[in-house]
């Protein structure tokens, strides 16, 4: 295959001098190699780390290319509520982000929020085409229910959502304070669902307004009623006036109420609800103290929430637990005065209306590690102290009330066992959100709703004989441990991937030499002093252009983003661009040096043995 015509004047088979007439392309140097590179897109750790199951990396890649609408739509394939989760999700994706080991995790939440807000600005969705005859009932319009409804309606089903409260949203509407999640954002997201064709029936409580049996008119049922029964302190005086369930307090505030708190508020607990309570109470002008029995590092609340609370003037007392609520009696309808404490404490006067005046607390010391790996706090003898409080808000977590369930739906104490596709022990019934055993967060709830939607789709298709039982769930996950992907379920990935393998790329598989250190862009926060007096959104996210810049920080772990370093560094000119994107390796010339794989910044090239 000479590509050059031979020289003139050939005799004895040679030209007058040793002058070339052919190319080295006649040498198939690929025969030298014993290993060969292969483009194998892997999974970014953020994708696996996302409880919703979003192709975060894919969206970042599109944003970086300036294809912002496509990025928005990619997110919307998996997450019905990006404007919500961009604000309230505690972004475990960022905990998984490899950039954290370099110069700070990518602020994924801020980019998602930007995309979510973009989606809110978009024209209303057209109704999803109804392609399935079946109707599905969803009980509970919290994040799990909304997610399930969204995916089902997109899959072509008729969907009816029953919601006990007056408006859809569940915890998003009634639990999370306005300063974290403005109602208009939630409403915008719900509006999208309505536009797609989801039928909301609000003010309908199962067991009261309709029976569980009536649900069976639907082809399938998704239960997502949430957890509402608060855990109790289990100490004396707990039922006194002034001691209140924190979630109940938040619900009142979210309905527009202005509860009377007094000057001093103590919040018991270290989770996110505790922080919501503390920060909300602070906005009513109270002097707020959070009491937590372990250390700050062990608080289940997200770090940012704790910090925001502290910035807003909330005091944290660590290693302290209440052992009794101290109460006083006050004339009905009047607030107790602190000065009355001595008058009533320990006295034998009749207490017509015992009212909390504070907590007796004991100092806790870290003991042996418990099942969670955290050190179990032990009370320190003789360390009792009094902490005055006009209001005590308890935020110790909630359990589900499962009493409404028919007997044949197997359930435990406060949780409902489900299979990986959210199925309960009753064939057509599925469950998710805080009803099932998983962290009680918005993202996990949304993720479970999606799993249920896929589970219901699969169930109904199998019932109708359209598909068999053979689907391999592991291939539908983002990484071995990630959530299921609706995109993969429908096999409709708009992102071209090179021979994807469903393993998460490790930090040591990245080549960080090709990245510059660019500090993470911090969210724009309102000034703490301003925040204390306002329910306006305290975190304003990132300006769009800053969010775009933040997306540029993404390593695109495991996924080729056509940076072309493989091609640029190939000493053998064996890599070429392929028409329509991607690269082609000329294996007949590739010597298997491995430079391309070593220099790939993101671990998207794997060296494999010849013949394997």
């Amino acid at each position: 295959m000479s590509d050059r015509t031979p020289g003139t004047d050939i005799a004895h088979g040679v030209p007058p001098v040793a002058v070339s007439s052919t190319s080295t392309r006649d040498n198939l140097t690929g025969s030298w190699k014993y290993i060969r590179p292969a483009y194998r897109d892997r999974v970014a750790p953020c994708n696996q780390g996302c409880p919703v199951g979003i192709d975060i990396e894919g969206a970042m890649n599109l944003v970086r290319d300036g294809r912002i609408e496509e990025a928005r739509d990619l997110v919307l394939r998996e997450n019905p509520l990006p404007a919500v989760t961009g604000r309230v999700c505690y972004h475990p994706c960022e905990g998984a982000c490899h950039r954290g080991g370099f110069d700070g995790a990518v602020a994924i939440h801020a980019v998602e929020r930007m995309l979510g807000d973009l989606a809110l600005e978009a024209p209303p969705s057209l109704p999803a085409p109804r392609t399935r005859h079946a109707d599905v009932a969803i009980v509970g319009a919290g994040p799990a229910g909304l997610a399930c409804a969204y995916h089902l309606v997109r899959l072509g089903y008729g969907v009816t959502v029953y919601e006990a409260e007056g408006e859809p949203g569940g915890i998003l509407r009634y639990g999370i304070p306005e300063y974290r999640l403005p109602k208009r954002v939630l409403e915008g997201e719900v509006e999208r669902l309505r536009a797609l064709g989801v039928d909301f029936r609000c003010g309908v409580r199962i067991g009261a307004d309709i029976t569980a049996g009536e649900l069976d008119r639907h082809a399938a049922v998704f239960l997502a009623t949430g957890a509402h029964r608060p855990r109790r302190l289990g100490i004396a005086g707990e039922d006194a006036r002034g001691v209140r369930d924190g979630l109940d307090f938040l619900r009142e505030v979210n309905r527009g109420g202005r509860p009377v708190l007094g000057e001093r508020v103590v919040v018991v607990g270290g989770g996110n609800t505790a922080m919501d309570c503390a920060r909300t109470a602070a906005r009513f002008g109270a002097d707020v103290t959070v009491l937590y029995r372990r250390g700050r590092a062990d608080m289940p609340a997200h770090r940012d929430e704790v910090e925001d609370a502290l910035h807003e003037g909330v005091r944290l007392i660590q290693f302290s637990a209440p052992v009794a609520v101290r109460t006083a009696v006050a004339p009905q309808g009047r607030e107790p005065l602190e000065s009355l404490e001595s008058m009533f404490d320990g006295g034998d006067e009749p207490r017509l209306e015992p009212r909390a005046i504070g907590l007796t607390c004991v100092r806790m010391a870290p003991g042996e590690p418990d099942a969670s790996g955290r050190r179990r706090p032990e009370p320190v003898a003789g360390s009792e102290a009094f902490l005055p409080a006009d209001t005590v808000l308890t935020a110790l977590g909630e359990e589900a009330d499962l009493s409404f369930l028919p007997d044949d739906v197997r359930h435990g104490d406060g949780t409902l066992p489900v299979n990986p596709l959210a199925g309960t022990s009753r064939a057509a019934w599925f469950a998710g959100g805080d009803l099932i055993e998983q962290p009680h967060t918005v993202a996990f709830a949304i993720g479970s709703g999606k799993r249920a939607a896929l589970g219901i789709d699969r169930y109904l298709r199998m019932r109708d004989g359209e598909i068999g039982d053979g689907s391999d769930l592991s291939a539908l996950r983002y990484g071995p441990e990630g959530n299921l992907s609706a995109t993969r379920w429908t096999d409709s990935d708009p992102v071209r991937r090179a021979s994807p393998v469903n393993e998460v790329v490790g930090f040591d598989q990245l080549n960080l030499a090709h990245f510059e250190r660019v500090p993470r862009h911090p969210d724009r926060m309102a000034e703490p002093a301003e925040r204390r007096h306002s329910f306006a959104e305290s975190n304003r996210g990132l300006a769009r252009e800053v969010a775009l810049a933040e997306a540029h920080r993404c390593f695109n772990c495991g996924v080729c983003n056509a940076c072309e370093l493989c091609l640029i560094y190939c000493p053998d000119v064996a890599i070429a661009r392929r028409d329509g994107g991607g690269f082609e390796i000329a294996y007949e010339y590739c010597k298997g040096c491995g430079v391309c794989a070593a220099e790939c910044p993101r671990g998207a090239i794997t060296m494999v043995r010849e013949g394997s």
Partner: protein
Amino acid sequence: MKKVMIGNHAVSWGVQLARAEVIAAYPITPQTQIVEELSEMCADGRLRAQFLKVESEHSAMAACVGASATGARAFTATSSQGLLLMHEMLHWAGLGRLPIVMADINRAVAPGWSIWTDQNDTLAQRDTGWIQLYCETNQEVLDTTVQAFRLAETVDLPVMIVLDAFFLSHTSEPVDIPAAAEVDAFLPRRTARFKLDVDDPRAFGALTTPAVYMEIRLRQQEAMDQARGVFRDVDQAWGRQFGRRYGAIECYRTEGAETVLVTSGTITSTARHVVNERRERGEPVGLVKIKMFRPFPTALLREALAGIPRVAVLDRNISPGHSGIFAEELRAALYDLPSGRRPRIDGFIVGLGGRDVTPAVIAECLDRAPEAAVVAAAGREPRRARAATREDVWVGVKP
């Protein structure tokens, strides 16, 4: 136009007439005046050439290789040590089939230092694939310089023009300078058959395996064979145009000769004088001048010398451990003549390191048979009989 000039300048004028395009050179006595004159010519515009004043003869030849490979007409000049330093690159030019023309002023090699003439520098380059043309007069120098380019570019081989140090290089003679336009007609601008060309990108000189190396050598040898005929044609063309021709060899008064002297370079002029004297005395003595040493004009010499009883070869050179080089080459060339036609060849080593080769020295070569003495020094007995080894007679050396 006639002009009195030294041999070195005759080279320069020849190069100018040939319109060399690239000159790369390094100074060495007694060559330096060639490139000094060319520098002047380039400076005042008489010659439009790129002149590279390189830092060594090795680089001079390397630069000529690069220039010639790119299709330009390239020239350099050197002498003695400089030529020896070039040796590696002479092969590059030869096997690279590059029509470079070089003037070498024959100068003895050191040590001890010598600046005077003998031929060991050029003859040591015998196997580098260069055509070698030895000159006798300044006119011949100028004419040969121009002819050399046409010869070189016809057969794609480099040509070395050889002049005796001082006897030619620094000796003034009247030289007829042909008109430039006529020379242009004789020697058009070079058109390379293959060259470095960005529009036809090729590699030259890559690794040649045993499967092809011999064939490429054979091509070179065939070009050398061809060069004999091409030189004859070039010389004839020159003669037709300018009235002078030289021949690869020249037979001078060889008709009926019983002894023929074989010479090269300026010794020839002295030998002509001796031959004339002897002929006037009625002695059947003749002369063959060898101008072309490579390719060796074997057929012409066989024709000229077959049947001559005795040939006396004067070698201004020595292959230590063997013999004078012209004599040896001639012996090889005539060896397979029929025995009755094969002359006796007597070799004489003369004039090394610039020692004068006077008429007396030549006369001694004519008169003293080698079997009489290996060292023909005054009054000395022969050291060894001729039959034992075939050794040349060193003429004019001290006992």
